[in-house]
């Protein structure tokens, strides 16, 4: 283990691991709530994209009991670029 005070990448990795855990929790909480599939967020129980209910950003706030979620509308230029499902 690196205990030095200079360019300590061991310490850095430990701090970053803690951040990874925080963000894993945010991702899982957001994904469980988002009952649809969209891009890389793919669920077998909700395989379709659902613009009616889920065309919105998830915001997560840190609380003592884990992330607390809220939502914010997505800016869409309905005139010029109406959203549509991607098909390949």
């Amino acid at each position: 283990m690196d205990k030095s005070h200079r360019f300590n990448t061991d310490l850095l990795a430990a701090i970053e691991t803690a951040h990874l855990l925080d963000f894993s929790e945010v991702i899982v909480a957001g994904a469980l709530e988002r009952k649809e599939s969209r891009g890389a967020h793919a669920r077998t129980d909700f395989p379709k994209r659902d613009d009616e209910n889920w065309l919105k950003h998830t915001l997560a706030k840190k609380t003592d009991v884990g992330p607390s979620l809220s939502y914010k509308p997505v800016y869409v230029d309905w005139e010029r670029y109406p959203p549509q499902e991607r098909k390949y």
Partner: protein
Amino acid sequence: MAPVSATIRVQRFNPDTDDKPYYDNFDLTPERDTTVLDALHMIKAEQDGSLTFRRSCRHAICGSCAMNVNGHNILVCKTPLQDVLNKNGRVTIRPLPYLPVIKDLVVDRSSFWEQYLRVKPWLIPPEDIPEKEFRVSPEEVTALNNAETCIMCGACYSACQVIGLTKGYIGPHALLKAFLRVKDPRDAASAERLADLAGSDGVYRCHTIFNCIDACPKDLNPTQAIETLRKLAQKRLAYERSRVQRQRSLQNPIVVD
């Protein structure tokens, strides 16, 4: 067949606690596709967590893992360990030469970035920018010789003996970037750039030792770029005027039917 075991000889140095650099040997058993970077990771994870080196992308695009391996500057993430082991299964890894060591394999790149900023590596557009996009011809792109693919790893800079001996030399990395901007048909400051580059720290400092070409992990050619800049510097005003001509003809291409 992969040898059973490999010995990685690494230069260590922590200026806070060590009087001078020394070498540590680490034995490990590599797989056939273990890279030099993988080997360093194995050592850090399993043998000595204090071994310190820079890395990020681990596929030769971020430029952070340039080191001196058996005397050559390379990207350790794209180099298989098997390729650098000698017949006794040993390899020697040192930090990039000519740069101050922060710790172990991590060097201080301040001078590298300072010289880089000196050449104003950003685009300086003309006043009369086209209404839509800038048109650039395929010939003009070819003439860049892939210089835009430089990943700023520092391998050339730290292989250059002029850098080692002369304070203030702009260096191959920044001159290559200057070449890119001077040849960029969208850039309007080529005459001014060429005047700066012809100064005492610039293109005439290069002794054409070719170490930079040898070191470049992207097979670029800073020496040739410097040669081109020397030639263009002689006729810089005419060169800048010709850019305007080129842009005009691209904006209103002559249609031949």
